[in-house]
């Protein structure tokens, strides 16, 4: 195989080629000085790190080209720490590459598998151990053990029950209800029809919700509402028209895909877009999905005007808001 006849035979490890540092002590000493310089720079950088920590107030902002206005402390600490660490690494690697031996040597490999006699011994030991245990013969003991080991994890499983409440109909209800006024989301003032301008997206929440409420986040996650004013003749969907007031339509702000709040409105087309996964809904056509991964239309809230001239809800959403789920139906 390895005879002269084979032109592709392995010639074996190539002979070691000396580096400058291997044969010239002056070159080696130059390398040593470089390494020492790098380690010295590291020491200085650590001192500079501590100095920066003491010197710069935490709120000092400086201008550094081309980074812009940045925190002086973060910049100086990061830079000095980075240099202190990097130069240790550079010194060590340079040491390894120039001064430590670079002679390649070969280690032998041994097969991972055990020798046949080892395997035989192990199997024999195992058979002896298994026989002594009676695991195969004492079937009653064995099977009840299996039964016990299968059941005992149930204790742990049961303990998980109190992680949370059962879903019941929680996902079907929001804070909206008959007669609840629509509060402007920024000013927290009740909205009148004339507050809803053509071409703008207005956000609202139900009357009686306060940011400081303990469950505000949970409630707003379902109740968030958006309003737009359309020309009534542009509303294509019959039910949408019935549930609107003077061209003002109210839809859930929570995307029916995975629950991101919708915040982009195309005035001309009356499309709204969820910025997370780009589901697009047509607000002039019952909130129908026209593009993207959402699976069903945005729920509409039926609105009207109360005797004082404020917009109010005529009830809760008729269907669950937000993403679909198994029980939604």
């Amino acid at each position, binding site marked *: 195989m390895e005879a002269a006849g084979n032109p592709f035979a392995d010639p074996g490890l190539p002979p070691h080629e000396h580096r400058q540092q291997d044969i010239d002590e002056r070159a080696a000493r130059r390398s040593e000085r470089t390494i020492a310089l790098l380690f010295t720079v590291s020491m200085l950088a650590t001192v500079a790190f501590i100095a920066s920590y003491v010197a710069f107030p935490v709120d000092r902002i400086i201008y550094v080209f081309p980074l812009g206005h940045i925190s002086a402390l*973060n910049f100086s600490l990061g830079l000095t720490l980075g240099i202190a660490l990097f130069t240790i690494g550079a010194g060590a690697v340079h040491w390894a590459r120039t001064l430590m031996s670079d002679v*390649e040597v070969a280690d032998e490999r041994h097969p991972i598998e055990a020798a046949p006699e080892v395997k035989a011994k192990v199997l024999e030991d195992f058979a002896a151990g298994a026989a002594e245990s009676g695991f195969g013969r004492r079937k009653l003991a064995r099977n009840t053990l299996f039964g016990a080991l299968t059941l005992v994890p149930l204790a742990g499983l049961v303990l998980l029950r109190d992680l949370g409440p059962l879903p019941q109909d929680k996902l079907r209800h929001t804070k909206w209800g008959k007669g609840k006024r629509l509060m402007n989301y920024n000013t927290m003032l009740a909205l009148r029809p004339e507050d809803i301008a053509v071409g703008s997206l207005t956000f609202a929440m139900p009357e009686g919700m306060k940011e400081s409420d303990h469950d505000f986040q949970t409630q707003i996650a379902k109740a*968030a509402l958006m309003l737009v004013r359309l020309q009534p003749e542009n509303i294509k969907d019959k039910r949408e028209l019935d549930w609107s007031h003077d061209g003002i339509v109210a839809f859930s702000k929570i995307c029916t895909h995975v629950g991101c709040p919708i915040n982009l409105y195309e005035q001309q087309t009356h499309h709204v877009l969820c*910025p997370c996964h780009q589901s697009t809904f047509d607000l002039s056509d019952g909130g129908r999905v026209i593009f993207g991964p959402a699976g069903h239309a945005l729920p509409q809230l039926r609105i009207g005007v109360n005797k004082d001239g404020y917009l109010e809800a005529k009830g809760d959403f008729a269907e669950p808001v937000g993403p*679909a789920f198994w029980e939604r139906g």
Partner: protein
Amino acid sequence: MSTATETQRGRKAPAGERVADWADGRLGVYSLAKANMRKIFPDHWSFMLGEVALYSFIIIILTGVYLTLFFHPSMEEVVYHGPYVPMQGVRMSEAFASTLDISFEVRGGLLIRQIHHWAALIFLAAMLVHMMRVFFTGAFRKPREINWLFGFLLFFLGMLTGFTGYSLPDDLLSGTGLRFIEGVFLSIPVVGTYISMFVFGGEFPGMDLIPRLYPVHVLLLPGIMLGLLVAHLILVFYHKHTQYPGPGKTEKNVVGMPLLPVYMAKAGGFFFLVFGVIAILSAVATINPIWAIGPYRPDQVSTGAQPDWYMGFAEGLVRVMPGWEINAWGHTLVLGVFIPIVLFPLVLFAIGVYPFIESWITGDKREHHILDRPRNAPTRTAFGVAWLTAYLVMLVGGGNDLWATSFHLSINSITWFVRIGFFAGPVLAFIVTKRICLGLQRRDKDKVLHGRETGIIKRLPHGEFIEVHQPLSQEDLHKLTQHEQPEPYEVGPAEDENGVRRKIKGSQKLRAKLSKGYYGEDNVIPKPTAEEYKEITSGHGHH
């Protein structure tokens, strides 16, 4: 008993030796050192990728411990009164407020936060690239399949740990990510709403999630990962490192330099290099500026919302999936969310179990320590590139809004491009890669038989111009011809020697077919034989 600590002349041994003796008596360190201190590691730049992953993991642990000293994993609402003016008077969770404190009040806190986050991104990237190196060189073959699985699990758990980590500050971006998770839970048939209620402790977002994610992020997941990492490294030592083919390198040896001193210095030094680069990066490049994003409110969102890059693949699947929902018998099957979320781990697991599939197809049960040059395993290489193509196409899908705004493209056409590209791209990549591999094999064969093109043009006495080819060195000849070209697996004749029909299982036929795809005639360029080489170089057929 004093012989261990004293030399024969009765002189007391040096202090270091005495300490080592003490340790040896209790831990057996001498035997350990005998096997490992001068262990040989081969040298190649690509072996450094796994080290980057290892060191960034260590950096993440170090900085993460520091962050736990200041972070409050609580969703109790507070009104901010700290030094960051734009947020003063804003309601936020304690988790968000304490993240602001880390960024603006703890000196160096911002740096550590940024190092932690940068290191996490680099950790995941390094693992993926390291995995690709192992994949394309066939380093996952026996005896290293288990270690490939450990590495794969580290990658997968790394993604989860990263996700739980960037969710902790409870900022508007990460909260939106958690809402997405709620939608994912809800899409699970039958038990979805229950899982959601149990995980969030009620309705989304509730008050329990951050305090629950916290131990998962700082203890449970990193604990498992640390265990896997140690096992991964023990196996690397135990199997000894693979090596690229070359002169003097065989399946029975490992050629390189010893751990002490060369790799102690190189690998140890490399830790500091990685740490240094990440520290400088964190000094100059802001990452996850939660103060600019603001605290989470379920009714607010920012545009251009993106997960960290390693979640981009899952994000892409979710974005481009059509919104299929099936309503029947009062129930809803939310396929539009459920399919992508099942597909996400499945696509990853396809690469995770690949070693076992390949060894079944090829029937190769031998140990391999010499790495494949990717061109010499065209089908595997093509599969890997196809997988990467699917991954990258979905990364584009995950950022479809950014692609649209940056390149002034229609979001609809990008989405359609990704939908089609996810299926067509890998097929195309597979075919192209395979052809490139076979082309490179042909070039290797050419080089072996005809030598290297020198670029020197020579005019012969009768006027013909030829290019001078220089024969390859013995080292190169060996390197280009050392690989094996196994025969494909055959089912065997349909009838045995007595003319009785043999039972051939469907799986055997499939295996034979796939095996042909690896080693069949069309999938390999026969490497030059010694006879061909002698024929050509003996002078009969010149140039």
